[in-house]
């Protein structure tokens, strides 16, 4: 019995070491002002699955994506899923206006100096980061087309099942 436990623990430690070198890594924490006026910190969503969507009002695909994510959020919010849309627009009112036009109800944040975008290596838009309940980055998805919405839905469902 004890031998089994020791073997199990060794395997666990090895797995932990391997995991440390794997792609999953802790999502950099940040606090940003939302279009609603309140400040939002990523780490306060620990325990929920978070989809960070980096976007800008001039990006057409981003607008389609934000609309689709509204549907995704409405479906899975009660299961512990949240969308945080991080706007890389130069002015917060541009982000607020677009979000209002699209009828977005989830938090829309403004990354004023682009610091958070740099932290997450955002080099294209839309750029989506899927974060699990432990606060680790699990998926990074670049680009978006309306007919690819299911791919995003599947990733979220996989995480919700864990």
């Amino acid at each position, binding site marked *: *019995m*004890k031998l089994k*436990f020791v073997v199990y*623990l*060794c395997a666990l430690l090895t797995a932990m070491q391997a995991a440390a070198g794997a792609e999953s890594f802790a999502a950099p924490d940040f606090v940003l002002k939302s279009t609603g006026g*309140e*400040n939002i*910190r990523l780490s*306060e969503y620990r325990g929920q699955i978070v989809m960070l969507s980096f976007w800008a009002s001039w990006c057409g695909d981003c607008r389609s994506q934000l609309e689709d994510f509204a549907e995704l959020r409405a479906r899975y919010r009660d299961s512990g899923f949240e969308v945080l849309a991080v706007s890389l627009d130069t002015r917060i009112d541009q982000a607020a206006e677009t979000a209002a036009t699209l009828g977005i109800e989830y938090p829309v944040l403004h990354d004023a100096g682009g610091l958070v975008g740099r932290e997450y290596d955002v080099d294209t838009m839309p750029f989506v980061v899927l974060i699990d309940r432990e606060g680790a980055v699990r998926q990074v998805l670049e680009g978006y087309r309306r007919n690819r919405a299911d791919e995003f839905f599947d990733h979220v469902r996989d995480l919700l099942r864990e």
Partner: protein
Amino acid sequence: MRSIRMLAAMAWLALPLAGNAQDVDAVPEFAPDGGSSSARQQQQTEEVRTLDEQVQDLKKLAVDLNRDLFLLEEELLFPANTQVAIFVSMDVGEFFGLDSVEVQLDNKDVANYLYTAREVDALIRGGVQRVFVGNMKAGEHELVAVFTGEGPHTRDYRRGASLSFEKGIGPKYIELTISDRENKLQPEFVVKEWE
């Protein structure tokens, strides 16, 4: 620093495990006719309980080790003779909704902190936040703190407070306190040194 901490923790965890491995060799296997099944079950339950206790002990050791390493790291990075720490606290907060604090030391930005609703709530309930810790040489220094938020009648509010202080040999602790001035129905921002 983190990798050193991890290595030390792993080594620490491995020590008792090595001991367990020896124990395993020493424990005889059950004899084929070594008593009734209920006695065997009881023995197994005992073993599981002992293992649980050992796991709990290991967890506690890891937590203690982590704490000690954190303290050691703090002492190394911010030695007592150069350490300056700045704290934020709030009292009541009826006339001021805190949004952010900017701290400058000798005209240099050292901290800029945005507060979430939860953090403000924690401050109002008596929490004290360390907004900055760093090193400064002994002598005269000036601290400027700028508070932004929502003032009375939900107006945008921005106020500054400053303090000139003498940094001596020991660590210096400074507290930025936001409180309500009832008679003027205004918030009050106080910067004070801890002795």
